[in-house]
């Protein structure tokens, strides 16, 4: 990858890449997981859980101050030596492969349930992975532009439920704090899965044009995501109440899909259409992360060739690892908490080493 001056991200693109990486598929299924634990206070849990991405951004801001031109993969090689650094980075690669495949599986399940029920699983997966890897093979400037454009498209997805607010009732979210601190924190833990992939900031901060702004615009990105997630859980509870939210597999579809519009039966198809951009954005960023890590692992191998080589592997993993939504949720339910802990430890240790060993 070249890092010429005209090939760097602007501040807003940087923030929108972070928004795009975090706010993907989890938007639709998040309310169910959170409300199961925290009932009507689920939206508070979501707001609290944003501590995790904020912490990650602060660490990234700190590391970027010391090594503005090296991403975490290079820094970890400096910290742990070439051998161990590569092993840790390989674990990072596995993490992104799981993210990408699980999101693809969820995407396929949602679309085959609501829109293209005549298409087979493998067809949808093949198309989705091909598109996301194609976007990922572009350089960072183009990915930044795509993130920026899709952010404006995705505003539609966020705003649509406003039109269903007339059917809501304030009694659905009362009493606030009624479930107790313990359950709210339990809900926050479940939200961490949705906030995962904030780690992409470690990979993209070298591409930011103005290196001083990593922390500021990273935080702006995280705050936008926090707002989107909190709003989305809040509006779902507001509309359905805590008892019904947990019955839907993708609860956010209900307030969004029930907006009546003339000619079409309801909003669901338009919603799904605009939402697929959101999913492609997050998939493309996962693909980009895979490409970044792979090029740091085997620098001889061109990253585009690597993406072509990994395509059938991703296809096979997605098809056989996640045959249906139950499998997808079970696997991500086990794997993502491990990744979150791994990322926390990995990033913290690197930050400490940067402070004491390499400064």
């Amino acid at each position: 990858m070249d890092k010429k001056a005209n090939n760097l991200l602007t501040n807003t693109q940087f923030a929108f890449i972070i928004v795009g990486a975090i706010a993907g598929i989890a938007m639709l299924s998040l309310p169910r997981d959170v409300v199961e634990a925290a009932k009507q206070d689920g939206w508070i849990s979501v707001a609290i859980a944003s501590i995790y991405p904020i912490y990650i951004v602060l660490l990234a801001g700190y590391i970027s101050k010391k090594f503005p031109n090296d991403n975490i993969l290079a820094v970890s090689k400096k910290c742990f030596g070439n051998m161990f650094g590569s092993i840790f980075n390989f674990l990072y690669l596995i993490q992104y492969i799981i993210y990408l495949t699980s999101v693809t599986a969820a995407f396929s399940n949602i679309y085959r349930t609501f829109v293209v029920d005549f298409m087979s699983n493998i067809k949808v997966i093949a198309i989705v992975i091909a598109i996301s890897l194609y976007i990922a093979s572009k350089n960072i400037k183009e990915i930044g532009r795509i993130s920026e454009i899709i952010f404006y498209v995705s505003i539609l997805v966020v705003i649509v439920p406003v039109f269903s607010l007339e059917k809501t009732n304030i009694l659905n979210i009362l009493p606030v704090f009624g479930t107790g601190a313990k359950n709210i924190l339990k809900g926050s833990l479940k939200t961490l899965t949705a906030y995962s992939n904030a780690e992409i900031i470690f990979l993209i901060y070298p591409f930011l044009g103005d290196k001083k702004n990593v922390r500021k615009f990273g935080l702006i990105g995280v705050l936008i995501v926090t707002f989107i997630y909190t709003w989305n859980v809040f509006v779902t509870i507001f509309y359905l109440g805590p008892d019904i939210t947990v019955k839907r597999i993708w609860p956010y579809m209900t307030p969004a899909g029930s907006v009546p519009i003339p000619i079409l039966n309801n909003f669901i198809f338009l919603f799904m259409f605009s939402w697929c951009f959101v999913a492609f954005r997050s998939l493309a960023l996962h693909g980009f992360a895979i490409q970044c890590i792979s090029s740091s692992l085997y620098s001889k191998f061109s990253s585009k060739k690597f993406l072509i080589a990994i395509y059938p592997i991703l296809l096979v993993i997605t098809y056989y690892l996640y045959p249906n939504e139950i499998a997808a949720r079970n696997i991500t339910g086990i794997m993502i908490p491990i990744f979150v802990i791994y990322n926390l430890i990995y990033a913290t240790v690197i930050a400490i080493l940067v402070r004491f060993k390499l400064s």
Partner: protein
Amino acid sequence: MKKNYRFLIIFIVIAFITAFKAGKEKVPIEEVDMAIGTGVDLENNNEYSLPICVYLFKANSIESDVKVGKSLSIGDTRENRQLKNDKPFVLGGERVHIYSEDFCRSGVRNDMDILFNNPQVVGTPYCLVCKGKSEDIFKTKIKGYDSPVDFIEGLAKNLINNIFFEDNYKLIDMFAKIDSEGRNVSLPYIEIKDDRIQVTGEALFKSDKMVAKINVDEAKWMNILLQGNARGILTIQNTPKKYVNMEAHAKTKTKCLKEEGKYKFIINVDITADRIADEIYKDTALFSKPDTQKKLEGDLSSLVEKNCYDFIKKMQNDYKVDCLELGRVAAAKYGRDTGQDWNDVVSKSDIKVNVKVHLDKLGRGGY
């Protein structure tokens, strides 16, 4: 430039493949059964019979037909229906959903489940309960309508005028109410009377089971007491020739208090009344004596209050259902999931009704 052409060709090829080889054939609407109304009947307490009302398209006119599937479970009726049918059927366009009373009394949960699960089903059809079998309702011929479904949809939609019914009988409301804490479903009750389909009351549900049918008069007072906005007619009558008609707009708000472990509910009904006919108080008195207006408002509020208390007494003693959604208000204030049966709590607690009537428009003038 060369590169762009390559992508254009790839795009066109993909577009052609998806358009012609997507996997499902496209068929005109005449060749599928679009369900416009669905019903659920229960026969002999074990066999489900699901009539589906569909349009038959002809050269110059539209008729409706009823296609029935029978089986021991609801999803299985598709199999039985297909054996007697020449077309596939599609859900998603239904506008009314009619349950027979027998089915409601045995519980509607299994039907809610199959509809909740189906991504093609939308939340917009009106739900109603009928006397006898829903199949008979769908087979009724109504003059001037293509199908009885068109008529029933209009019937359900316009209940909000003149009889204080509220606009919450859609499928999405059923989904939202049945399992929510402190809420209960009530649906309009229709039957065929004098060869016409008409609303004769309201069916009260406890959880997913119908427990009682109330008549239109009771339903009127119940809907005034329900939180929200309702419009209807109030009448004070002394003799056949001496009466007052008022078009009333009732806004209701409910409060809940807890005193010594017992719940107390206060229902504030705020009514804005427009005069439509007045044979008792008369214009001359209304405009010259200020007390007359107060007397009119007082008479109206005592009328509403008396009837509301009568209904509450009946609800607490006979039906034993919290059909006023009071449990919801209490749960929102004093915490959810406390394990209380709100139907039970509401039946035993003290309910107070405050009615305030404001005289608003008087019309053009009394004759």
